[in-house]
């Protein structure tokens, strides 16, 4: 028993060098697929991976080109199309219903009833037979590797290898990729020998040759992703040479898609290379020397071969070729046969070439000189390597003899194109979109030229109607998992307390780019701890900047709308950052240090943008400022609550009393032997000390605080508790409670803006807006009902706003919220509905409005 694959329950022998297609054909399989719409039988045709006819399910993978896949012992192969099977397909009835299934019918039917869409979609998807994804198999993850080369050659035929050899010998870093093994699509032994010799020459010169690597497309750069069996290469090349060859031209006549119709290279590959006779009696219609040569070669397979010049008028047969009608000088002749082989010219495989600009991609070989000899191909490759670009030769159009299939992938016939044209779709691009021609797996490899020629030849076509449709990646179908190679999953930013949080049982969440604790067990309990005892919050995620240099104060004063000149060392001020349109882009804290330096804190997500923002002004105004982003370098822990000071005093000898370190003051102190910048802050509404420290000292500081806080049962808390605590004080979350066009007045932050300053970024815009009535504002709300964020706010039955934050608050005795409301008839409503619950606008803060607790 030799090697064998399993095909629909049968054992099929595999000979050395077989592809799945050749093995199956040898075993008698003639129908490989059923076409997309009309379920017509389709068989082997091109044998080069350009047409869709041989798409099978191989080892669970759908849509595998059998002609381009090596056959292996133990493979499991199935046909995917046809119901219940490809051989006996009941849906073939569609072929007789052409009248009811005209081109574009799916755009005109199945619109009603809408409830049937789900069912219709499932049924239609099954009916097309494009294959099913392997269920339960996890997506693979190929690594992506960046490679830098001077020259990338796509295509390992004679021209490509010659180009690689030539360039490598001249000292360039060269890489050559071919989607198959070198020479796999060549049947001529002379050409195969030349390929082997050139491959040796290229390798000896230092070129890297990668077989079974498929180029996906040419992107700006040029950048060419190449998919290999184990890796995806991201190739940055100085130049690309596309030596991708040509497909033989496909002719249009009735029956041109029947099993038994072959392109001559396909028949020769099957017969000569794989030793599988395409049929007993073959009619070869050749207008090329190569075609006639391949016909001679076919005779060696034992087939009876009749050679004609053509043209072909029709191929007859039901489900396979039984006869062909040829136009001869003496009139039409009907010849019985089981195989029709066509060699009527070439369609360059030029998708990659057309994706790039002239500077990026050059062509070599058959892709620019279709049908060239081995010697011409080699010369073309060497010329391309030396920088001499070749313009493509004119490709003569193939005569159309009657209604046949233009697009095999999408089952678009010549009649369909004519009908579409009559309906008014009058250019190749719009015909493509309406009929879906060229939008199948072959992406126009077989039919792109035919479509363009059809449009261009119409009597009433405009000049551009016959242009080739735009070539876009991917040039070959590829699985999504290959496109995802190298794309990262979520990237997490962490503070130095991350592991400590996990040790303490924290449930972590993503907050922007950061990983932060939501809670350590019980959010309500944590809120209570902060209000009645003390809590610890990791705020190391805050943006932190050291601003120094002789123009530091000048920069702060000019950029921000807050008073800066009167901020004495040891004091800090709430800061809102505006853009030139006066809109709030961030908020934070500005602390004045000694020697004219400042410490600026921004929101956790705002640090990168704040740095860019400030650097822009430093540059444009040419200021002497040292801006150091210390967001990563420094951690910060908030100790807040009525007992916060008591706990802190156990760990420091420095003065932290209410007088020594009052609200909005800051000082450099040492806590548990860790040098800290302690800032008095009030975000959660209790006495709070934000201890900023060198990142590496964070865990030790945290441990010391927790230990020192045991008598008071100090409690670590997270974002879950923070959300309610800050809401009780009416503090907004940027991005959640704010809209992109909120200027300070709309947020009730006018108090933070010093309009009396001679100038600051956004001042002119604010002056303009102050002259206008305020049309929207953020307000505090009490809601009679369960908290639901995002519900609309209604007044008089109309939507006037939205709830942006809300929570059930024990301290405030009910559901509190922040939301924005629009003015109606010049005033803001007070009594509203939040969804279905009644709501009242109330002043904020909801808790401790005088701020007595946080100023203690």
């Amino acid at each position, binding site marked *: 028993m030799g090697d064998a694959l399993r095909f629909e329950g049968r054992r099929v022998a595999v000979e050395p060098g077989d592809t799945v297609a050749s093995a199956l054909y040898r075993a008698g399989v003639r129908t490989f697929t059923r076409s997309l719409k009309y379920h017509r039988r389709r068989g082997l045709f091109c044998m080069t991976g350009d047409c869709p006819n041989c798409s099978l399910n191989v080892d669970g993978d759908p849509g595998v080109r059998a002609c381009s896949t090596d056959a292996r012992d133990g493979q499991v192969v199935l046909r995917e199309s046809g119901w219940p099977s490809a051989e006996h397909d009941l849906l073939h009835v569609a072929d007789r219903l052409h009248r009811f299934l005209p081109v574009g019918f799916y755009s005109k039917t199945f619109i009603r009833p809408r409830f049937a869409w789900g069912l219709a979609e499932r049924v239609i998807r099954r009916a097309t037979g494009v294959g099913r994804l392997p269920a339960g198999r996890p997506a693979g993850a190929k690594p992506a590797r960046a490679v830098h080369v001077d020259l990338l050659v796509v295509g390992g035929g004679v021209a490509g290898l010659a180009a690689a050899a030539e360039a490598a010998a001249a000292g360039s870093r060269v890489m050559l990729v071919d989607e198959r093994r070198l020479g796999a699509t060549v049947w001529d032994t002379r050409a195969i020998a030349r390929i082997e010799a050139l491959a040796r020459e290229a390798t000896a010169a230092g070129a890297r040759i990668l077989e079974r690597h498929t180029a996906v497309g040419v992107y*700006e*750069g040029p950048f060419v*992703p190449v998919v290999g069996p184990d890796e995806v290469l991201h190739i940055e090349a100085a130049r690309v040479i596309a030596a991708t060859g040509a497909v033989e031209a496909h002719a249009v006549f009735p029956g041109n898609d029947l099993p038994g119709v072959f392109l001559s290279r396909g028949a020769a590959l099957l017969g000569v290379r794989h030793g599988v006779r395409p049929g007993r009696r073959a009619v070869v219609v050749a207008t090329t020397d190569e075609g006639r040569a391949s016909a001679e070669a076919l005779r060696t397979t034992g087939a009876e071969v009749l050679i004609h010049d053509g043209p072909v008028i029709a191929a007859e047969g039901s489900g396979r070729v039984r006869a062909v009608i040829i136009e001869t000088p003496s009139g039409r002749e009907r010849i019985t046969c089981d195989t029709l082989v066509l060699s009527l010219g070439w369609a360059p495989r030029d998708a990659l070439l057309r994706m790039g600009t002239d500077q990026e991609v050059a062509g070599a070989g058959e892709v620019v000189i279709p049908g060239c000899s081995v010697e011409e191909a080699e010369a073309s490759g060497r010329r391309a390597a030396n920088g001499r670009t070749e313009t493509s030769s004119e490709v003569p159009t193939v005569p159309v003899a009657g209604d046949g299939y233009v697009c095999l992938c999408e089952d678009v016939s010549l009649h369909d194109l004519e009908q579409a044209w009559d309906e008014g779709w009058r250019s190749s691009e719009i015909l493509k979109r309406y009929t879906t021609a060229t939008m199948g797996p072959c992406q126009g490899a077989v039919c792109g030229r035919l479509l363009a020629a059809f449009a261009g030849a119409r009597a009433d076509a405009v000049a551009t109607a016959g242009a080739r449709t735009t070539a876009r990646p991917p040039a070959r179908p590829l699985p999504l998992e290959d496109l995802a190679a190298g794309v990262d999953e979520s990237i997490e930013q962490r503070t130095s307390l991350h592991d400590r949080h996990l040790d303490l049982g924290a449930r972590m969440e993503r907050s922007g780019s950061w990983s932060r604790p939501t809670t350590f067990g019980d959010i309500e309990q944590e809120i209570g701890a902060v209000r009645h005892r003390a809590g610890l919050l990791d705020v190391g995620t805050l943006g932190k900047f050291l601003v120094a240099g002789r123009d530091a104060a000048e920069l702060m004063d000019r950029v921000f709308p807050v008073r800066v000149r009167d901020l004495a060392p040891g004091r800090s001020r709430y800061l809102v950052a505006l853009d*030139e349109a006066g809109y709030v882009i961030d908020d934070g804290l500005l602390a004045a240090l000694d020697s004219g330096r400042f410490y600026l804190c921004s929101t956790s997500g705002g640090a990168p943008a704040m740095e*860019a923002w400030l*650097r*822009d002004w430093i*540059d444009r105004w040419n200021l002497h400022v040292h801006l150091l982003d210390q967001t990563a370098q420094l951690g910060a822990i908030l100790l807040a609550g009525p007992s916060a000071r008591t706990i802190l005093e156990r760990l420091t000898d420095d003065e932290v009393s209410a007088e020594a370190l009052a609200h909005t003051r800051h000082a450099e102190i040492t806590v548990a032997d860790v040098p800290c910048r302690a800032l008095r802050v009030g975000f959660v509404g209790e006495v709070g000390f934000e201890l900023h420290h060198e990142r590496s000292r964070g865990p030790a500081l945290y441990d010391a605080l927790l230990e020192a806080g045991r008598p008071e049962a100090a409690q670590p808390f997270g974002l879950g508790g923070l959300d309610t605590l800050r809401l009780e004080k009416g503090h907004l979350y940027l991005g959640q409670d704010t809209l992109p066009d909120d200027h300070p007045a709309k947020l009730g932050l006018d108090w933070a803006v010093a309009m009396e300053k001679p100038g600051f970024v956004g001042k*002119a815009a604010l002056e*303009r807006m102050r002259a206008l009535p305020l049309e929207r504002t953020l307000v505090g709300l009490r809601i009679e009902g369960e908290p639901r964020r995002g519900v609309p706010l209604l007044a008089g039955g109309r939507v006037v706003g939205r709830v942006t934050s809300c929570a059930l608050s024990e301290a405030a005795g009910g559901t509190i919220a922040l939301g924005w409301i629009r003015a109606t008839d010049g005033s803001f409503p007070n009594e509203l509905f939040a969804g279905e619950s009644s709501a009242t606008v109330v002043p904020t803060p909801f808790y401790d409005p005088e701020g007595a607790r946080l100023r203690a």
Partner: protein
Amino acid sequence: MSLMVPCPRCGPRPQEEFTFGGELRALPAEDIDDFARVYLRRNAPGPQPERWFHAFGCRRWVSLTRDTVTNRIDPDVIPSGG
């Protein structure tokens, strides 16, 4: 698969390494209509002076001229204040 942006310090880099700062805008000045300066853009086809921030590299700004039709950046044409 990117536009290459020439950073004067770091060399040509893929556009994903940058934050795009838009058309180069004039600084606030007495004789310039501030409304037009802040809200309006030329948005014309052809060479456009622009600001780019090399966020993944040196973290500094660069002014350059990009042709909005050809998407080509000429590294030698540095726009002035705008």
